[in-house]
């Protein structure tokens, strides 16, 4: 009697290598685990401001950012639910922790919150809270790439809400007219704060808006990290080859409220439950196991690595001080380097 032949391992799609699949899993799990740690710190009142979760959206941020070429110097600009994209570009958990806890050692020295920070060398430009503004700004970065003849690509995230702004429209239109190497990832998570998609726009799918700008648009399952990667990869390749901008709509779902304080009273419970079953990390881990692309101990090793990294990151910064108050005056301008303090001191004179 012969033993049955082992089931053949299916080929890995999208030209990815096995280590890259584990990378994708690592970044998705790191995103979720880091946010879970932040929830604990928030409850201990160590997170000073609001806390924004990307629960259930990790695949869209990670898969799309992973499609960029970090060696080539591609740059992205995230929105608040794209922590995963920044981690892919090399942002470190300790930086995110320091930002949330307003530490003096944070990348913005305590001036800005959460994931609003940047490092153009590593390839991420932090957003501001005014939705849509990063589209023209990233178009400017893409313009620089084109004018200097560099084969680099910019990627900017917008959501169903940001796409209603005038800034989005003007930036998108400019990028289209100038055929700039810019990929616009339209993250459709169903809600902008409490406003559902149907009150945000009269189109059924965000990708329909691409036609109005004369650019290609594709839609992908935002909870399937490989589909996200593949769709974004094609748009990035198109941009790098001089084909101009395009819109990639990623259909996903925001499983938490706008921020930790928001109890989502406006969302039907069944809706959330349905999307829990479509969890992008569970789906991918299952896919890795069932295809045999990764062994169970490799998946476990990913989790262990993340636990150790986050333990270390929190220990490193948890007890750090806030910034010195007087540093608030520094660096509004290159010149003068410090805002006037004399007017204030004269109050005693």
């Amino acid at each position, binding site marked *: 009697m012969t033993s049955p032949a082992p089931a053949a391992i299916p080929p890995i799609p999208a030209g990815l290598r096995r280590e890259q699949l584990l990378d994708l899993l690592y970044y998705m799990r790191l995103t979720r685990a880091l946010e879970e740690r932040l929830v604990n710190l928030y409850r201990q009142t160590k997170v000073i401001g609001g806390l924004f979760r990307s629960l259930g959206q990790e695949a869209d941020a990670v898969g799309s950012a992973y499609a960029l070429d970090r060696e080539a110097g591609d740059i992205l600009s995230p929105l608040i639910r794209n922590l995963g994209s920044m981690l892919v570009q090399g942002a470190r958990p300790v930086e995110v922790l320091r930002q949330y806890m307003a530490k003096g050692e944070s*990348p*913005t*020295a305590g*001036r*800005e919150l959460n994931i*609003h*920070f*940047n*490092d*153009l060398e590593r390839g991420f*430009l*932090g957003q*501001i*809270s*005014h939705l849509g*503004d990063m*589209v*023209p*700004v*990233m*178009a*400017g*970065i*893409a*313009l*620089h790439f084109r*004018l200097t003849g560099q084969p680099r690509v910019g990627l900017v995230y917008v959501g169903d809400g940001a796409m209603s702004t*005038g*800034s989005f429209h*003007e*930036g998108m*239109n*400019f990028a289209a*007219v*100038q055929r700039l190497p810019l990929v616009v990832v339209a993250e459709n998570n169903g809600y902008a704060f409490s406003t559902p998609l149907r009150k945000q726009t009269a189109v059924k799918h965000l990708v329909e808006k691409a036609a109005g700008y004369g650019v290609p648009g594709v839609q992908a399952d935002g909870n399937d990290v490989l589909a996200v990667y593949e769709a974004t990869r094609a748009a990035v390749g198109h941009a790098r080859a001089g084909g101009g901008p395009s819109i990639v709509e990623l259909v996903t779902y925001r499983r938490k409220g706008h921020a930790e304080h928001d109890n989502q009273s406006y969302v039907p419970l069944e809706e959330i439950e349905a999307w829990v079953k479509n969890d992008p990390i569970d789906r991918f881990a299952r896919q890795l196991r069932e295809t045999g692309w990764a062994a169970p101990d490799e998946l476990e090793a990913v989790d262990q690595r993340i636990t150790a990294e986050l333990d270390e990151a929190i220990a490193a910064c948890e007890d750090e001080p806030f910034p010195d108050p007087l540093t608030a005056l520094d*660096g*509004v*301008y*290159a*010149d*003068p380097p410090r*805002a006037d303090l004399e*007017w204030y001191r*004269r109050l005693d004179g």
Partner: protein
Amino acid sequence: MAETTYLEAIRQGLLEEMTRDDRVILLGEDIGPYGGAFKVTEGLHARFGEGRVIETPISEIAIVGVAAGAAHMGMRPVCEMQFIDFMSNAYSILTNYVATARYRAGGLPTPMVVRGPSGGGVRGGPFHSQNAEAGYLHTPGLKIVAPATARDAKGLIKAAIRDEDPVLYLEHKWLYRRIREDLPDDEEILTPLGSARVAREGTDLSLITYSAMVFKALEAADRLAAEDGLSVEVIDLRSLAPLDDEAVVRTVRKTSRALVAHEDTRTGGVAAEIIARINELCFEWLDAPVRRVCAHDVPLPYAPTLEDFVLPQTDDLVRACRWLARY
């Protein structure tokens, strides 16, 4: 030496900086082969090509946002607002994104200039005559300059382009072709930001102003000298942010009487800020309250009788100076 108009001086400044530094690019509406609504950029598209002189859709947010992104990457963009009135379309991205970048984002540099025709007296009506400065003076992170002479029009555009911070360059369209000066060909003109100029020396009272009002101030000073024997010192601020406090204090200490004048409306205007600083810095040197002459607090109307009444005129300055001298 060549006789140069205020408008040509701006163009020369742009041309010289674009020649000197290939990181300097222009962005704006109709600034390509057409040369811009007032022809400030005429000839630059032909000379530098569409990679350096970029015609944009009608979209001030995009112009400013794209410039910011390019500036982060080391370029030196100069944005043209077709009329400065339209800069308010980009108010949010200018004040929230551009102005805050260095401070909030770990020193992220955004060296860029936004320039455009400001000011009234040209029968442009409410949307082609505005003075924008007060709306931006309040925002930390922006620098604001407003040249009155051809020399400073050139010197300030060059200095603004070289500056590491975002600069709003407010040129006065009434001056475009009305003033001309001999500018040297063999000297590089750079006007430092944050430095006022004494446009006329005087000892009896100080008239502190900027932009096109400098000429009405000089006219008033002439009349007061001839008719009243008064010696009026005229200060041309040139930069509104940063303000040259030292120059203001110096002239107030010299004359002990000050009038602050501008073409912009009164409430919340630049004059209010200058008067507050005089109060803080040299109150004890004053022999009279500081007065201001500004436009009436109304949108700028079109009809000549209305516009001339609303905008401050030389007569208004003369009356205010006489009041101060009598006090």
